[in-house]
């Protein structure tokens, strides 16, 4: 999607290894979010950021950490990947309250 890119698009990793997913925006939006999408669960919030170095947990944050050192970049790290973290991960950006999200194209992560 225009203004927001995720990398990598696909990744296969082994159980126990650390993994970092990157979200990059060119829209200068204050708010950034990481969601995971799983069948039957919709989209669930992992972590979000409301400014540089300002982050907070979502509903499924265990096993994940995030960092935002610049407005444009929001990194999601799986500290020690497990099979339950096999999922499609979406980054989203927003201007703020009661504004819609713009989503990236997603990263399909498989933990074997």
């Amino acid at each position, binding site marked *: 999607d225009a203004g927001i890119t995720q990398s990598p698009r696909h990744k296969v990793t082994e159980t126990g290894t650390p993994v970092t997913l990157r979200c990059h925006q060119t829209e200068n939006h204050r708010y950034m979010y990481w969601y995971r999408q799983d069948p039957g669960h919709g*989209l669930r919030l992992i972590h979000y950021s409301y400014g540089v170095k300002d982050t907070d947990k979502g509903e499924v944050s265990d096993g994940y950490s995030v960092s935002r050192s610049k407005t444009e970049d929001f990194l999601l790290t799986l500290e020690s990947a497990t099979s339950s973290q096999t999922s499609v991960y979406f980054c989203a950006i927003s201007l703020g309250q009661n504004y819609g999200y713009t*989503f990236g*194209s997603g990263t399909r992560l498989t933990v074997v």
Partner: protein
Amino acid sequence: QQQVKQSPQSLIVQKGGISIINCAYENTAFDYFPWYQQFPGKGPALLIAIRPDVSEKKEGRFTISFNKSAKQFSLHIMDSQPGDSATYFCAASGSSGETSGSRLTFGEGTQLTVNP
């Protein structure tokens, strides 16, 4: 804790028919209700949204109906087309402070198939 319940899980409609997807929420502090459309291999895209001060919003063939007292809202797709075949998500958020922005809680999604 699932705060937004969406139904049905899947829906098959004939071309030209009306597609209806329903959502119910629990948190009375929610005040923004968007719908997202997702095609395979793509991220969700904002389709239409409503705030609780109105009971209906229409954009082209897409209409949101909102019932505040019942804590329910629904998406109606009129004259459904094969190109509408996608996954649809309802969502909700409330004004919970500047630091949380518009934290959206999503429904489970509905897989819509429109047969030609």
